[in-house]
């Protein structure tokens, strides 16, 4: 990874509190351009809150969140909109608009941000739906007619609609069977390489971690420890030790070695 380019997202001194419970206390994190960064941590350590903070859905109690070099919480309405166009978010349960078909869902960002001819938009919607591995007739279906895995793919197609530079994924493989999850990992990896995406994944899935992440951010003690997998294997923090040396982690890491 190129060190010289400025980070896509810079978080400094982030503090998040819910009542008297402190979730993040002085958390620092950089997301570098073109990397896949996985965020892991025990339940309740604020993984999803961190993601929501990075995309501006949750206002931190203090600290700085910079996206593309601009402070997320002091920018004007216009800059905010321009930045929102440059990222795509896949929510945990897809968050597809249930009153619209898949194609209409993917069309929403196009209508909101572009003035392309209708036929071209139709083509692009087909391209996106095909790209995420859905059969072509999915476009006319409603989210309620799709299986969990297909809904995730459809939501990914919507997140990718405007070819964002940064993709945020909240537990993309949760609730998928292992085969579908592996396929989803591969899809993310492929798209990341051919579109040169920067990807932030919040996950519990050790296989995802081992298979596609460039770096891993572990939430412990209200902060993050960031490093590549080999770095983290050498960490002495007890939770990180337990996480990366447990039986599940060993199996996932072993699979990664035999794959490579």
């Amino acid at each position, binding site marked *: 990874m190129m060190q010289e380019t400025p980070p896509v997202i810079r978080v400094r001194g982030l503090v998040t509190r819910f009542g008297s419970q402190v979730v993040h206390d002085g958390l620092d994190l950089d997301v570098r351009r073109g990397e896949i960064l996985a965020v892991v941590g025990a339940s309740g350590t604020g993984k999803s809150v961190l993601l929501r903070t990075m995309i501006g859905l949750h206002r931190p109690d203090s600290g700085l969140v910079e996206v593309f070099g601009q402070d997320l919480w002091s920018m004007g309405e216009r800059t905010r909109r321009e930045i929102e166009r440059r990222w795509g978010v896949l929510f945990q349960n897809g968050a597809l608009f249930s*009153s619209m078909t898949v194609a209409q869902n993917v069309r929403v960002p196009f209508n909101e941000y572009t003035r*392309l001819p209708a036929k*071209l938009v139709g083509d*692009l919607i087909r391209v996106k739906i*095909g790209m995420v591995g859905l059969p072509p007739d999915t476009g006319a279906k409603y989210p309620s007619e799709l299986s969990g895995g297909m809904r995730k793919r459809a939501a990914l197609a919507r997140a990718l609609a405007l*070819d964002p530079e940064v993709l945020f994924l909240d537990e993309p493989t949760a609730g998928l069977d292992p085969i579908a999850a592996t396929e989803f990992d591969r899809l993310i990896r492929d798209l990341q390489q051919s*579109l040169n995406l920067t990807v932030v994944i919040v996950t519990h899935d050790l296989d995802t971690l081992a298979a596609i992440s460039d770096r891993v951010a572990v939430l412990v003690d209200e902060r993050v420890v960031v490093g590549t997998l080999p770095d983290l294997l050498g960490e002495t923090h007890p939770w990180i030790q337990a996480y990366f040396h447990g039986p599940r982690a060993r199996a996932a890491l072993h699979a990664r070695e035999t794959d490579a």
Partner: protein
Amino acid sequence: MTAEQVFATQPPEDGWFRTASADGWFVLTFGGRWTLSSIESLAQPVSVLEPPAGRVRIDLAPLTALDTAGAWLLFRLVRRLRQAGHQVHLSGASPAQTALLARMQNLVEERRPLARPFVWPIRAMVERVGSTTFTVFRRARNLVTFYGMCAVALMRTLVRPERLRVISLLSHIERIGLDAVPIVGLLSFLIGIVLAYQGADQLRTYGAEIFTVNLLGVSVLRELGVLLTAVMVAGRSGSAFTAEIGTMLVNEEIDAMRTMGLDPIEVLVLPRLLAMMIALPLLAFFANMMALFGGAVVSVVVLNISTGQFLAQLSSAIRTTMFWAGIIKAPFFAFLIGMAGCYEGLRVQGGAEGVGRQTTKAVVESIFLVIVADAAFSIFFSSIGI
């Protein structure tokens, strides 16, 4: 090189392409950023490109950015040229760009419609009428089944009263009855005031202001008190039944209950239904008193009827049967409201959206049923001479 032509977008998008001819090749050079924002203006010139017959070389080396939209445009061009019989040669693409173009190639080419197929309006209408007819019959059957299930559960509870969820029953009575006291009381009080004012206005013409008390007493006790309370409770608690049960259904809590051998009718529906049938008559009685009180305040303060006169007139105007003719309707209304609320809750389909839809339906249905029942009672009472 001859006949060089350049198409470029306006800054800041800066995507461009150049056409030229050299050594029997028609050379297309693509450069700059071919992304969603620049193809807005590149799509048109690209779609009308007509190179002379022969070999075409597309040079992608000066491209600085290519996203799916740009790749799609490029892919479409290559496909069109190949179909027109050109020999197309791509060069200068980075590995990532090659991968992206390959991805376009792999996409299924079939042009499936993105919208639902079109159906002729007449045919659609016939289909709608048919399916609605079936739905109505299916719903009638479901409703009868539901009433039957409730009756069975009720019988079981009567035989073995220890099965009744007493705590649940009491908490529902509190929520339906006690919690509604302020709003029902205030509304009834205000209705009493309104009735007294309007009645007095009309009766003054005949110098019969004192009969305002008769009007008030009869209309409140026989009709308005219980009807208003029923409508309020349908909006407040009937809707809550649907929302609560519907949400549990969506969360699979009801399935979980069934697998543990609990009967959802017995656990969820019966306590609510019984609580409603106990709370509504009490509330209706309270509403009656508050409405009479509101009327009394107006009579005493505005109409100069003394408290003693008011009470004497009231007791001569109404009879006990009149009071009972009103209050006896309350448990029946309660039954209808509770049934509609619980039934619609158990019929929720889909997610949170379905809960909302069914809740609206439950409120409309229960108010409708209450008014129909009220009309039936009126006919019945007049036929037996009460």
